[in-house]
């Protein structure tokens, strides 16, 4: 356990600058988007007042942070999408950076006098940590954005907004920050399963090289097929399916559990017995 935590700390430490850069970029883009949106709306109201001499409140609805988030959702989604892309790429790099380049850290990692599974779980939890740090930071940014919006908007024209409503106003957040635990479980469960399948495929490639690419792609394809099969064949998302919804869900869960167990087992087996530098 101690060695696992040390390895996890090292993995997080190695990614820290990229993580900070992603957090900085997210904060900058989203807060600027909110500020520009608020200033643009105030400007519109001022123009209306100058042209008509009438109070903008008569014509415009009160300024709302929720609406601002909805109107700027593209700019909210850009850093989120970029962060996801970086993390997907890093899910590959977290392995390959240790094998390639001037320094091959894989030699050292695989020669540690501790269980090799610690390497696997440290890399896995490092990626999950990055995901949840970014999600947590996004949640933190929402009230900060509201405070910035409230500072710019005139108090008498400001309509109070709930953070939950603001989150729901953005299409990307509906997936990343779902309202129900069941949705959270499904969305992040699928993410974790994909990561486990990717790790198993990478380790197949690292074990069997060129042939391993074929094995890896075949394994990933097989798992993907297995995951979508219940939806296509068992009518999971159709009320007219052969199985009751609960039964179809149970089958889906069993298949997902099977993929999790087989991917972790395969990854650990390859790391212990087959992987080479």
């Amino acid at each position, binding site marked *: 356990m101690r060695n696992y935590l*040390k390895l996890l700390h090292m993995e997080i430490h190695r990614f820290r600058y990229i993580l900070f850069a992603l957090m900085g970029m997210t904060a900058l883009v989203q807060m600027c988007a909110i500020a520009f949106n608020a200033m643009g709306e105030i400007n519109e109201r001022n123009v209306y007042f100058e042209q008509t001499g009438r109070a903008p409140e008569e014509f415009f609805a009160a300024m709302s942070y929720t609406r601002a988030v909805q109107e700027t959702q593209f700019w909210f989604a850009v850093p989120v999408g970029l962060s996801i892309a970086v993390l997907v790429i890093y899910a590959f790099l977290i392995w390959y950076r240790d094998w390639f380049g001037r320094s091959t850290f894989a*030699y050292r990692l695989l020669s540690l006098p501790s269980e090799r599974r610690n390497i696997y779980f440290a890399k896995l939890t490092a990626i999950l940590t990055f995901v949840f740090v970014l999600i947590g930071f996004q949640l933190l940014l929402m009230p900060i954005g509201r405070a910035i919006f409230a500072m710019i908007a005139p108090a008498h024209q400001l309509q109070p907004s709930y953070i939950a409503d603001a989150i729901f106003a953005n299409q990307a957040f509906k997936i990343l920050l779902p309202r129900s635990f069941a949705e959270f479980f499904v969305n992040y469960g699928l993410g974790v399963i994909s990561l486990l399948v990717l790790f198993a495929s990478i380790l197949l490639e690292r074990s069997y090289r060129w042939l391993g690419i074929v094995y890896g792609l075949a394994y990933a394809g097989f798992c993907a097929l297995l995951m979508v099969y219940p939806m296509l064949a068992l009518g999971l998302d159709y009320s007219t399916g052969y199985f009751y919804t609960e039964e179809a869900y149970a089958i889906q869960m069993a298949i997902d559990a099977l993929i999790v167990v087989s991917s972790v087992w395969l990854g650990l087996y390859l790391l212990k017995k087959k992987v080479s530098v």
Partner: protein
Amino acid sequence: MIELKGVRKRYRGRYVLNGLSFTADKGNITCLIGMNGAGKSTVMKAIMGLVPVKEGQILVDGKPRGRWIYEKISFVPDHLTMPLSMKMSEGLTFMADFYASWNAERAAELMRFFRLEPSEKIGNLSKGTAAKYNLVLGLAPNSDYVLMDEPFSGIDLFSREMIADVFSSELIEERGVLLTTHEIGEVEHLIDKAVILQDGKAEMEFDCETMRSEEGKSIVDVMREVYSR
């Protein structure tokens, strides 16, 4: 004793190691000799469990390998094995964190001997300095065996002299060393035993001192004979 028995390893469709057997004893410097691609580095990696072998046995002190060997055997590859973003001191801390056999005092002594600056980034090291740092990482633990893969490759004269000095020091005396090098002439006087690899097998395994005194042949002479057959 490190013992290989009939080890076979396939790489890119051919057997790089094809029934290789030899021993490397504690207290001796054993040199693996072979042409390029003879499988010298593969032998080292196979002993360390860094490549799986298809057949055969690798025993350390009579026992099959397990993760316990990493406390007993240090490996000094011919390139860096620590993240380039780390400082040398951080690399030493990493080793101290994971290896019970790590000897921090000896590490500090070696750093001084090689005149290495702990605050320097590993990514900034020249080839020669990287080789010295690799030696620090390999020799600082209280391990019984040290495997060294081409410790002199691409290194300037003065650095070579420093590394050669290590071979005749007490840092090596008690341990078993398995070495691969192309610079035989430079270390011939230090080597106790030579193993000549050809076609994935140990073509010849001999005691260098006996060969010199009884047959009047140097390692290079024996190599010439073997490879001209």
